[in-house]
């Protein structure tokens, strides 16, 4: 059994086309799916792609086997739509040099001449996401910095850490290698680690 009980219950209600369940699903995922589409095809076409994806998703729901979460499944449908649009426009989801740049990476200056940490790392005030995000300011700060990441880094982070896609799927989506996706993801994660570190140290974004 690969789907969690709550999700299975939601799926049962969706299959019965209970309006509240359908509304709950859209409310939960639409904003995020639009952000994924935007990052790939731009603002103008993202809305249509996500609307078409919802129509496709509700139609395909009886065939949903629960091999992934609904979230991941919906993301895949949006990605397919976005990639079809890119092909139609004869565009490629390019990855720029900026996406791989490691200038000013957090922690990179924290080593001594022997390659070891120059001073101990200070622990954060919380041990769980809930404890850290309890401070709304930090959540807002992370959101801001996430939006400022280079596009391919942002996509890699959203698709992996927020949507749960496999590296192979992200590589296909970005038309690059899995190794490159790992580099992009690592850059993005380190930057956000740096944001939390700074917030913990100075108490502001």
């Amino acid at each position, binding site marked *: 059994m690969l789907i969690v009980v709550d999700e299975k219950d939601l799926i049962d209600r969706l299959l019965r086309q209970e*309006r509240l369940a359908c509304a709950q699903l*859209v409310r939960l995922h639409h*904003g995020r799916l639009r952000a994924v589409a935007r990052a790939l095809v731009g603002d103008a076409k993202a809305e249509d792609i996500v609307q078409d994806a919802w129509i496709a998703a509700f139609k395909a729901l009886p065939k949903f086997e629960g091999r992934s979460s609904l979230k991941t499944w919906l993301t895949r449908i949006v990605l397919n739509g976005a990639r079809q649009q890119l092909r139609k426009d004869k565009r490629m989801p390019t990855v720029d040099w900026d996406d791989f740049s490691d200038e000013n990476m957090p922690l990179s200056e924290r080593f001594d001449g022997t390659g*070891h940490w120059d001073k101990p790392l200070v622990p*954060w005030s919380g041990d769980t996401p809930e404890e850290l995000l309890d401070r709304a300011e930090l959540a807002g700060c992370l*959101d801001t910095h996430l939006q400022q990441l280079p596009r391919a880094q942002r996509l890699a982070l959203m698709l992996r*850490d927020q949507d749960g896609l496999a590296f192979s799927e992200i590589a296909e989506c970005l038309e690059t290698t899995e190794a490159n996706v790992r580099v992009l993801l*690592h850059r993005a*994660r380190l930057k956000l680690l740096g944001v939390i570190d700074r917030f913990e140290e100075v108490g502001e974004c």
Partner: protein
Amino acid sequence: MLKCRDMLELGTAYLDDGLNRPELWAVRMHLLICPNCRAYIQKLKLTVNTVGELESYRTREGEVELILGRVFPQAGRAD
């Protein structure tokens, strides 16, 4: 032997099963002896989990009705 500077770059590969067996062994050995790198990996892991919990992309008011109207054009408004 790995240095802490190497560990900085290997963090994501370690967390996402991207290391081959010798690399994984080297990382585990380093983590056994280095509290700072253990702290770094813990921070990286917590960053990943925290990013996963962010509610960055809220669905705007009115969008739910719009989408449901397109998906189920024959039905009335949602409850």
